[in-house]
């Protein structure tokens, strides 16, 4: 039974995606349809009663969703910027990192710095210098820490082009 259900949901999702409808949108559409049905039947006492409870439920769901959304967009992250060698990537001589276009920090080799950002994603711009103080490379990346609180970015790995440069924050 469970499997059938799961299979059905998968199929339904596929079908909907085909029409460009995401599951979330489908939920909203369903809610609106139910509301319309209840609205049309509002002459009946029972429907009116159901309508009230349904709307309360919607309100509650909306509030809970709002709560999650606020959590999502309002979360403050500490971004540790780490310029230490890691997995064969050598520490960089000097990196200037700015987040979301803010003031940039200078991170010398084997140093670690921390910046705070708010929200699910941020844009990180790293200017990599060589020994002579010349910019060798500028990397701009959009990083999404999502709901995890603090993250650490290993700059040598970022510069080296590794994909797993986002590490868990140090304790």
């Amino acid at each position: 039974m469970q499997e059938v259900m799961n299979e059905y949901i998968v199929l339904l999702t596929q079908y909907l995606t085909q029409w460009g409808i995401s599951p979330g949108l489908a939920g909203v559409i369903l809610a609106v349809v139910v509301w319309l049905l209840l609205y049309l039947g509002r002459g009946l006492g029972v429907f009116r009663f159901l309508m009230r409870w349904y709307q309360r439920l919607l309100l509650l769901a909306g509030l809970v969703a709002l709560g999650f959304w606020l959590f999502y967009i309002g979360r403050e992250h500490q971004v540790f910027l780490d310029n230490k060698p890691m997995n064969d990537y050598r520490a960089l001589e000097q990196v200037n990192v700015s987040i979301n276009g803010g003031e940039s920090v200078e991170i010398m080799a084997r140093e670690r710095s921390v910046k705070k950002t708010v929200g699910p994603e941020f844009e990180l711009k790293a200017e990599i210098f060589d020994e002579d103080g010349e910019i060798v490379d500028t990397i701009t990346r959009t990083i999404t820490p999502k709901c995890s609180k603090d993250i650490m970015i290993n700059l040598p790995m970022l510069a080296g082009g590794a994909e797993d440069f986002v590490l868990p924050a140090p304790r």
Partner: protein
Amino acid sequence: MSDNNNNAPLLRLEHIGKEFYGNRVLSDISFDIRAGEIIGLVGENGAGKSTLLNILFGMPVISSTGGHEGVMFIDGRKVNFTSPNQALAHGIGMVHQEFSLIPGFTATENILLNREVLNGSTMSYVFSDRVSTLDRQAMNERARAAINTLGVNISPYMTVSEMPVGYKQFIEIAREIDRKNTRLLFLDEPTAVLTETEAEILLIALNKLARSGIAIVFISHRLSEVKELCSRVIILRDGRLITDQKAEELTTRQIASLMVGRESERREVPQEIPEAPVEPDNVNYTLSPSPKKKKKKIKPALKVDHLWVDMPGETVRDVSFEVKKGEIFGIGGLAGHGKLGIPNGIMGLYPAGGSVRLSGRKLTLNKPRAALGRKMAFVSEDRRGVGLLLDEPLDWNITFTAMQTQGRFLIGIPYIFQIRNEHAMRKEAKKFIDQLEIRCTGPHQKAGELSGGNQQKVCLAKAFVLRPDVLLICEPTRGIDVGAKTLVLDTLRNYNKENGTTIIITSSELEELRSVCDRVAIVDEGRIAGILPASSPAEEFGMLMMGEKMRVALAATE
């Protein structure tokens, strides 16, 4: 509304009866009410009117005491109300004697209280209709319509607290009218607070209402109004339906005598030779000496002149009378006319004025202590409120007053250090428990745990402990069972006989007064309507109770 199934009456009662704890208050009441009728419902206090109304309205008092007997039909369908809301839903409206209005609200707000016209609002879908705003304009329209139906001119914007009393009564009625489905309206003493012109307007308005198809039950003590307004008169007495007749067929005098009844019981007493009247102005019945005891030429024990008492609900306006030493004097009258105010005022419990002389010496009013100090004792009508310390043991209740006013039951040096003598208190309490047959576990039992009758006996004991010269008793038998009633009355009679104590009894039960007292004064609207020997026919007492206007009417007819 009147196009209802004409065969079935609007309301039909069949064999309605009610017992409270084995105490029968209503039995076998049956009558019909048809649309557009105005029915006068009359009866003495305690005749069962309020119980009948409570049953009709499904008041919780009834269901919580075991329901009622008999059945009710509305439009021929059997109904049984368990809450007032059901009665309202069936179109029965009620205007109570006390105003049920919110003083700071306007006429509109009161008329439409909890039936406000609302604007629609999306919020109301989520929460409830209560978050919709009020449609003031529509509300005012409706209120105006309801007021206009009554034929009076009251602004819907007027605040109730600024209205004269008469207006408030109209607002109450307008509120019932506004209820769309109201078909049967009960009015409990609606004219009691109105001036004569207001009363006239009200009567006209009621007639108008009745013509629109609303049935009205008009409860009043003003028999002339009943006669003028009603098409039918229903008389209750002692819980029984005595008469259900067309109003034209009855004279006010007949109604009065039917109400108090008992013509058959008329005692055979020769007509007394009238004494010189001591009463001022409005007395047309004269004093007569007691037929039993010939105690003439004795200084009056209590002489009351132009007494007024400011007791809420029982205002005494101008009362004068004399009570002879050793006499049992009764004060009767309808509830709310001030009979209870007289003893309460004399004892100083409510603001009072005028002069009261006790064996010739003037009594200081407004000071309970002064009255108690002059060897007067008082048994209050409000047993639980004023008469007893419900949370304290019986010996406290019985001896407290004597302790405080006469310094008895104390040991130690007076004025310096005295503590209570619990032994003496207990002894005294025991004595009275035996003497009055108070059923209790002993002097230590809390007064609140006793039954009504036994509580009353405790109150009597409290008064007897004071060894009074004059004893004032209010409603000695209210709310107690028949056995206890007899015992209480016998005790009073014996006490009077043995000690020669002057006793003044105030009671709503005329029969009781007639059986115990030597003379009975009837109070009407704060004044003494007349004083009669107890042996006078009941009918005459009834006439006195019906008040001044009655007498004017009578004078015209006779």
